[in-house]
């Protein structure tokens, strides 16, 4: 059983996404701890990439700010080592295939294991290409997280059957970013997933408000929020931690009591 399962034992999970190094790594560390203190169940740490093709403008800009600030994969590994002195909830990396491939997949994935990273989310690594990293992820006990999209249709069962850690269900077409309304029939997708696996399902893309989080977590096992948190960071910069903490609390409160 993967450590990620822990994230889904405390009612519905709230999963914040934070771009490492936006605007600097000290701020990232403060924001992560504040998120944990306010009830985050799992932290998605983004390793910035120069050309994040699955991201909308908000996270694209965060990637750019972080890279301009000089953040690197090695510095992010050090951040995680430091965070792991007191942060015990599951943490996963979200980045792009080239960041892992270019570093050297085996060194990257074995380092994840060593520093306490529980999973890897790579939005440009679909089911057909997972052999690129899956054998190493299995060898080192790092869950390679599967994504399912509104367009997955006949692919849902195939992906769900082999999913590890949790399933990242993409709520909408398009890229990451705040949406006023999510129109996809997610319930029926979740039903197909449930029929094929016990792996928990968390929904992300477009969620920003507590009501949306409650609705999404209500039909799944948790809600993932990225752009709304990155917006707080963009607005408050190095002083963002308490604001993120307050936001995380409002979101966790909205999902915690749901059945």
């Amino acid at each position, binding site marked *: 059983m993967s450590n990620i399962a822990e994230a889904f034992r405390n009612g519905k999970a709230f999963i914040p996404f934070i771009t490492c190094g936006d605007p600097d790594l000290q701020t990232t560390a403060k924001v992560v701890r504040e998120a944990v203190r306010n009830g985050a169940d799992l932290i998605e740490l983004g390793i910035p990439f120069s050309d994040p093709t699955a991201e909308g403008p908000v996270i694209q800009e965060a990637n750019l700010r972080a890279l301009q600030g000089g953040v690197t994969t090695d510095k992010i590994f050090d951040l995680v080592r430091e965070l792991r002195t007191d942060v015990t909830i599951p943490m996963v990396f979200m980045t792009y295939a080239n960041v892992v491939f270019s570093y050297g997949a085996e060194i990257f994935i074995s380092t994840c294991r060593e520093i306490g990273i529980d999973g890897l989310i790579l939005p440009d690594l*679909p089911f057909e290409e997972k052999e690129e990293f899956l054998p190493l992820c299995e060898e080192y006990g790092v869950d390679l997280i599967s994504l399912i999209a509104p367009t997955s249709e006949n692919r849902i069962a195939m*992906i769900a059957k082999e999913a590890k850690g949790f399933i990242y269900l993409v709520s909408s077409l398009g890229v990451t970013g705040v949406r006023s309304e999510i129109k996809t029939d997610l319930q029926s997708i979740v039903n197909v997933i449930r029929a094929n696996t016990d792996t928990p399902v968390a929904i992300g893309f477009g969620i920003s408000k507590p009501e949306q989080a409650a609705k999404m977590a209500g039909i799944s096992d948790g809600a993932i929020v990225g752009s709304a948190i990155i917006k707080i960071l963009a607005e408050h910069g190095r002083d963002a931690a308490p604001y993120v903490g307050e936001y995380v609390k409002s979101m966790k409160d909205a999902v915690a009591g749901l059945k």
Partner: protein
Amino acid sequence: MTNPNGRFGIHGGQYIPETLMNAVIELEEAYNKYKNDPEFQAELTELFNEYAGRPSRLYYAEKMTKDLGGAKIYLKREDLNHTGAHKINNVLGQALLAKKMGKTRLIAETGAGQHGVATATAAALFGMECVVFMGEEDTKRQALNVYRMKLLGAEVVPVKTGTATLKDAVSEAMREWTSRISDTHYCLGSVMGPHPFPTIVRDFQAVISKEIKEQMLKKEGRLPDAVIACVGGGSNAIGSFYNFIEDKSVRLIGCEAAGRGIDTFETAATVNTGRVGIFHGMKSYFCQDEYGQIAPVYSISAGLDYPGVGPEHAYLHDIGRAEYVPVTDEEAVQAFEYLAKTEGIIPAIESAHAVAYARKLAPTMDKDKIIVITISGRGDKDCAAIARYRGEDIHE
């Protein structure tokens, strides 16, 4: 040449978001259905011949040959195609395929604007909606092409992210495709991106080498000794090489944009300076830093200003079947001017990279040898930029 799952050796593949997977699978199925369908092929041939003006000429450049004093030089005149470049070959194929698939909207990325113009043209012809993504930097470098696209009824979206050039236009077109798939076909302009694009685009561009072979056999009774083409993503080059890959006596030479030189950071010579990576849906060579961040590349040519190269080129490089040589801005500009003055042909600055290398190679070869240079596009669009490069400010 394409293996299952779209691999060329270790290169290629489908590194794209799950959201797009069914779209590329649907595209592959449709392509496999139509590629050997006589009716589809007949329609495409009709479009190639009657609309695009194919076959393009294989012209003996006698003055250039005499001036360089070595190998006999032929120019494959893709610049004479309708819309002024080889891009129309691929676009007519993909637009016809999109129409058969019931799509009503084409989106595309463009660098120099030639692919955008070609896509806008096909969209006009087929009565389809068209949106073209173009780096903001390139909309300035190629203002004339922006106007042409608008005139043809397309919407041009300037892309401001990243380096505001071709790679950012590709990223933005991919993002747009993930948000609107059901009625939209992404008409990718080069032999890059996720499978099946590198194969589809190659097959539509392979008409170039098919014609070169037929025309050369007719004119000279034998195959050429070298085929030279410029390489950005590499569609005119793979089109020029493809039907010669099995003819081992024919040297295949791709000319990369070295910008200010491959020993500087201001270069776009991917095979010469990059390393293997995963980006824009494919595994191939990319200009990148030690952490895999994609490098901001540079070339005077907006069409070659791309940090990657098509996976089949990466494979041809790996197995040593094709050579990839760097050509600087200065060499390309000199070749641009040279071809204009020597043959009365103004090549695209992209194609001028191939001319530049031929100027070095031809004198080293015997007079009984033959070189074919693909002139992938015409250079009208570049005149203002070349004038600026030479310190002359002209108003378009």
